[in-house]
């Protein structure tokens, strides 16, 4: 793990406006994540962890504050800048896997590579090693509907890593898996972090899952708090 922060957040606020109702999802978050860290963020529903995740990943803009990801000021860029961030610097693993259902696992990976502007064929050796580590090298020509939940999440992880992102953002990656597959996915994430020094930011409800990270942050009412709520 490096001391240099790959994610730096200062005074981050986010307000959602629904008609005349304003909901303050983040109320001033400060955060530093060193490169190579596996950080778990835990908190109850509505604590703001998903909003923080979405802002760091460039899925939504902040209302105020500064977010710097891999030396890019995400808070200062527009929609196209956030699109570029998603294309080049961050990748997502979601609770619902979010694979393209009409494509095979291989084509899901190739689509991510194509969008990132990387060669789509053949896969390079480091990525083939990742596929071996994930245990899905033999399942690439199957569509998501032909794969188990655990396999689908591994394909999602493979797709996320194919573009060699600076940061892997995992949103409840075990939320839709049974305990055996949950454990396998968490072990894979820890392995990837240890072997490849992949920076991982994982949000979860689950304390056991959070324990796989180097550090656990707790969120409540839109703030990072010192102790679990």
């Amino acid at each position, binding site marked *: 793990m490096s001391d240099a922060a790959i994610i730096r957040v200062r005074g981050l606020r986010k307000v959602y406006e629904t008609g005349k109702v304003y909901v303050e999802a983040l109320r001033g978050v400060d955060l530093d994540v060193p490169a190579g860290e596996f950080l778990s963020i835990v908190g109850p529903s509505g604590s703001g962890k998903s909003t923080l995740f979405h802002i760091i990943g460039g899925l939504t803009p902040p209302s105020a504050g500064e977010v710097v990801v891999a030396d890019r000021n995400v808070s200062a860029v527009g929609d196209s800048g956030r699109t570029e961030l998603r294309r080049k610097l961050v990748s997502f693993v979601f609770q619902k896997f*979010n694979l393209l259902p009409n494509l095979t696992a291989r084509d899901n990976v190739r689509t991510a590579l194509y969008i990132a502007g990387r060669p789509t064929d053949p896969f390079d050796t480091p990525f083939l090693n990742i596929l071996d580590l994930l245990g899905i090298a033999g399942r690439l020509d199957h569509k998501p509907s032909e794969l188990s939940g655990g396999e689908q999440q591994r394909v999602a992880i493979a797709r996320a890593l194919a573009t060699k992102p600076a940061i892997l953002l995992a949103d409840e990656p075990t939320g839709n898996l049974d305990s055996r597959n949950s454990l396998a996915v968490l072990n894979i994430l820890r392995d990837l972090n240890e072997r490849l020094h992949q920076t991982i930011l994982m949000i979860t409800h689950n304390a056991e899952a959070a324990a796989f990270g180097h550090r656990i942050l707790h969120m409540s009412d839109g703030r990072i708090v010192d102790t679990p709520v």
Partner: protein
Amino acid sequence: MVFRLVWENVRFRPVRTLLSILLIGLQVTLILTLVGLTRGFIDGSEKRNEGVGADLIFRPKDSAFLSSFSGSPLSEKFIDQLAKEPHVVATTGVVTQLIGGAFDSISGIDQASFIHLSGPFMFLEGHGLEKPDDILLDRYYADQRHVHAGQRIGVLKHDWNVAGIVEPGKLAHLFVQLKVLQDLVNSTGKVSQIYIKLDDPRNIDLVKKELDAKYEGYPIYSMKDIESYYSVDNIPLLKYFTDAVLGIGVLSGFLVVGMSMYMAVLQRTREIGILKSLGASKAFVMGILLAEASALGLGGTVAGIVLSFGTRALMNTLMPASLPQAIVPDWWPWAALIAIGGALLGSLYPGMLAVRQDPIEALAYE
């Protein structure tokens, strides 16, 4: 990769894809069928006129060639008068009268002079016009009315004896004696036009020039003129009709494709969210949707062309005389342009909605 994405999208929902292609195809068929019917009618009329074998056609004073398909405002005294002109070897006057149905007409002929000019009819059944209530039908009309020689049919509120069935391609689908039709339509001594045969086709320009000078105000057409006059543009009613139908076809095609693409975008909200989470730009997502629309438009064009052969078979079976439908390959590119253009335009709005979608909301879409 884009091709693969589009292809897999189209393949993934086969029912929606087939329905979209069919709906677009129906618009294409509608356009090709209506253009084909117009062309078939014009081509049929042209061929039948050419089939008479005349070199010149003499029309009533101040009449445009295709201004009327019916009526007989020309005195039949011109028939003998024209027969005496230099280089003229035969003339025959014809009365043309519209009958029930939009484009059907009956021709009154003087059988002897008509055959002298045009040559004999090719009989498939029966014989020529002998009695006042005899009628000759060409094969198309006989098939359409399911009649044979010896049977009776009603035309112009008159009961006729089908004297014979002849090969099509000569002047009209129905023939009766000139005098009988003149009396029936209160045009005794009048004809609709006079056909003129010359001793040598090389004299056409010369004779036409002389007749133009002598019979000022009476339009005289050569067969070459007829070829150029027989087009939709020279029949204002048909042109408006064709334009209106095309307009409706394009508009309804646009709406159908628009609805189809709107549904497609709704169904794929989550997938669009996934693409955006992978860093796909607005242009990329829009490109995928437009490529898919183009593929559906192209598929619809092919389906429409194939279906237009079906409608032709249907028309030619049910109403070969009244509604002859031509296959119009020169309209296929236009049909493709309309279908693909409609598909692209129709998918623009849902496409714009798709690319503007918030990726978080899109990913949460169930």
